[in-house]
């Protein structure tokens, strides 16, 4: 996989993950083009399209589009299920995930993705194992944040 983009129906980019080195300018250009292309497609159309020399696999969940760019020999259907598994992970973690969860906890969305996919390849496909890793990290986080409980006033800025 070369990259994964999450964007809203309004075309707002919610998450971007690049597995190939590209300049910021190029990333912005690709995002713009692709968001436009995918948003222009009708609901019943197929989930795959050729774009430049890549294959695009996308699926819409509620207001969010999940969109992956894969290479020629890569498998479209299994990529579609990569997307689905990621959605399941988010859903399980946030509890019935919605777009706002991803906006406000974008760093968590990245952490979950890193546990699931690394370097563009599936690292761990077991839902249990991925969530276990994230929960362990959260436990570390909770035990550490207690120290800062009394500083809420400072947090406004």
């Amino acid at each position, binding site marked *: 996989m070369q990259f994964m983009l999450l964007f809203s129906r309004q075309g707002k*980019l919610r998450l971007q993950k690049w*597995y190939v*080195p590209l300049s910021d300018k190029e990333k912005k250009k690709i995002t713009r083009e692709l968001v436009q292309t995918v948003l222009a497609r*009708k609901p*019943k*159309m*197929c*989930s*795959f*399209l*050729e774009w430049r*020399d890549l294959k695009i696999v996308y699926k819409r969940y509620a207001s969010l589009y999940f969109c992956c760019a894969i290479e020629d*020999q890569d*498998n*479209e*259907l*299994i990529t*579609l*299920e990569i997307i*689905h*598994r990621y959605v399941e992970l988010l859903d399980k*973690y*946030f509890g019935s995930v919605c777009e*706002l*969860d991803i906006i*406000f*906890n*974008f*760093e*968590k969305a*990245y*952490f979950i993705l*890193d546990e699931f996919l*690394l*370097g*563009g*390849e*599936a*690292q*761990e*496909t*077991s*839902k*249990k*194992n991925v969530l276990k*890793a994230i*929960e*362990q*990290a*959260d436990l*570390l*986080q*909770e035990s*550490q*944040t207690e120290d800062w409980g009394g500083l*809420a006033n*400072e*947090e*406004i*800025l």
Partner: protein
Amino acid sequence: MPAVSKGDGMRGLAVFISDIRNCKSKEAEIKRINKELANIRSKFKGDKALDGYSKKKYVCKLLFIFLLGHDIDFGHMEAVNLLSSNKYTEKQIGYLFISVLVNSNSELIRLINNAIKNDLSSRNPTFMCLALHCIANVGSREMAEAFAGEIPRILVAGDTMDSVKQSAALCLLRLYKTSPDLVLMGEWTSRVVHLLNDQHMGVVTAAISLITCLSQKNPDEFKTCVSLAVSRLSRIVSSASTDLQDYTYYFVPAPWLSCKLLRLLQCYPPPEDGAVKGRLVECLETILNKAQEPPKSKKVQHSNAKNAILFEAISLIIHYDSEPNLLVRACNQLGQFLQHRETNLRYLALESMCTLASSEFSHEAVKTHIETVINALKTERDVSVRQRAADLLYAMCDRSNAKQIVAEMLSYLETADYSIREEMVLKVAILAEKYAVDYSWYVDTILNLIRIAGDYVSEEVWYRVIQIVINRDDVQGYAAKTVFEALQAPACHENMVKVGGYILGEFGNLIAGDPRSSPLVQFNLLHSKFHLCSVPTRALLLSAYIKFINLFPETKSTIQEVLRSDSQIRNSDVELQQRAVEYLKLSSIASTDVLATVLEEMPPFPERESSILAKLKKKKGPGAVSVNELEEGKREGELNGGGERGGDNSAIAASNASTPSPSADLLGLRTGPPVTAAAPSAGSLLVDVFSEAGVNDDGFLSSAPPSVVSEDPAPPLPESNELLNKFVCKNNGVLFENQLLQIGIKSEYRQNLGRMYLFYGNKTSVQFVTFTTTVTCPGELQSHILHIYTCKHMFILAYTCCDKLNVQTKPVEPLIEGGAQVQQVINIECLSDFCDAPLLNIKFRYGGALQNLTLKLPVTINKFFQPTEMASHDFFQRWKQLSQPQQEAQKIFKANHAMDTEVLKAKLLGLGMALLENVDPNPENFVCAGVIQTKAQQVGSLLRLEPNAQAQMYRLTLRSSKDTVSKRLCELLAEQF
């Protein structure tokens, strides 16, 4: 604001994100962000040391701002500081920031690498994973340099936790992709391969991606993975859906791992070991069988996962291309999918069948689905599916179904999406050519293409139909008739006008017998389109008109009138004006013979790869048109070759025959050697010259001299006069020779016409490239060079024209192999007497260095002598008639050579005059008579040469009816004796 579900996030961050979301306008958002950036900057710069939490919060805000699409130019240092925090969440945010926003600030990279190194050696698996994720996300060369040695060790160490192994494997994969030279598996190879046997499915899933990538690059070192992969696959395929617990996905056991295993096997040929192979075939059969079983779940995830494996298995079957049984089963399975209600499956089935169509075992099986595919082309609602259907029709096309498929594609074109029209046009054009049995069908198809989708018919397509018509004389009459009819349409596409103009210009004579398409009718039809056309097309039409003048002398006055009209001869477009002027001039000054030579019918194009095929390849990328396709063409071509025209068979076929290696050719998208474009070579394509002209804005046909090199012609060599003098009295010999090149000459003259053969010999063992020659008449004659690119690919006749001489140069090969010789023919017409010889400029590259030399072409006025025999009485009578002082030229000069009577006689005969015996009372003297033939006039000349043996001197006297001739002859001859 939603409740943060876990881990209690940063409240300040949440407030900031809310603020941004509440911004009513882009400006408000930017204002809010700038305020935040100023705040963070002051915090970072402030005296008070920030605690880890604040640092984390601000770094996270910066990250958010960056992800919104704004530039971030600070905060990197604070993020790096977070890496060395011993608090997990701070470290985590630090790594995230670095992963997303890394820049190649070398100072920073050193600090980051340091932090990573610490975490990798911390033995805390959570920290190790964070560090590995960071390396995998950044994947820079600096990181590869720092860690490529360490990570394999972590990967195979016995005490490494599974989760760390998984991260290490994929981290290494990313580094290998960036810097393969730095990732050396060496001693670890076998232990990495054995990760396929790991009992943890997650480790296998991660490791196999690394192994697949490494196997592609070093198949031999990793080949033991094949049997391991087969047994792993076999265990998964035969497992019950619950065996693999959480690795079962919607009742499908380990779909990701299965796909990756099948993908890995595609890096290798079928296993040699019979047992392994048997086990694999069993797996593949099981997968095909499962596709027929009723689904265990109605969920789309179930069928997607199952079919993902099925498609990967089919890819492997196609890759092996050795099991007819499996191939046909695969084809039948895909056939079912062609009518599936899921659009995704129809799409993939069409795509997968494209590759099956190229296997000899399954080609016929694929063909049985033709009706379904045609139906898909007509009824699918999604353009990308229709595109796949068109691709498949193209792939399954062969001689047996070509007419049906081409007809369907043509009718689809009428309503096709704009996005795929051009490609469809190319495909139709290729199929029509490849499978044409009778070429009238081909011509009809291409003209239909232009009619239906003229805007999408690229130049390559219409160039190609012209190439084919020119190369096949059995279709020329039909083509002329058909374009003539097509042009009758009140509104026809400009591409039709181009093809029509070209074909009628070449072959209009073939239908001129019919009064309904008499020459004038043809001309008027073409000219009725003229005003609606663009400049390039008008230029082409002008060339067609001059061709008409040659084909049909009766149209000459009409066409000359058109050319002479202000709208042509004073056209504001330089190219059109120049053509009008030059063609008008050419048609009025050139004799019919010259006209016929210059405007001769185009010779056949060199048979080579279809330019359209090259275009399609370019469009689709080199991989898209398989070798198979070319070979298919070859196969068909051979069939064709048995046909009526023997060697001159389908262009594609011949191109294959002349292409030494099809695979090499696949990469060379551009046809022909790269240098031929502007060279007046017999090897370049129509396309090449035209596209060259297209690049210049000069218009359709460039009027620049056909020179590849930009350098101006060199001044004539110092010795060129001497070389010229050598040929005053002889017609054949070596004109010039240096260490590289020898130029030989043979020439013959009759009346006022001459033909010269130049032989360019390469004396070296290295080839000369971009060899071009240009003949010009020297400036003194106010000559202008008229290069007539007769509307054609390589057949460029350079036509040098001045008041005194017409020199027409035929093209010369642009490439002279070491030791080889090429010939060039030059036709010369003497219009009136002249002094200066034309200049021959030669340019070529020898080992990269440009050679540029200019010689005088040995064309001297005496070449056009007709000897005149006359008696003594007549001679003296004429001698006295030419008694005006300016009619005589005389020179007294010292002998340069031995005064041998026989040699003198031979030279005087070589001069071209009649040597008159018994005329001069003094037997030592020589007298000659002749008439110089020019187009404008005949110039009688008499010569008297008086040798003085004692003084070793000569007195030479010439009398001519024209003073310039006497003078020039005298000059020339004084050097000869």
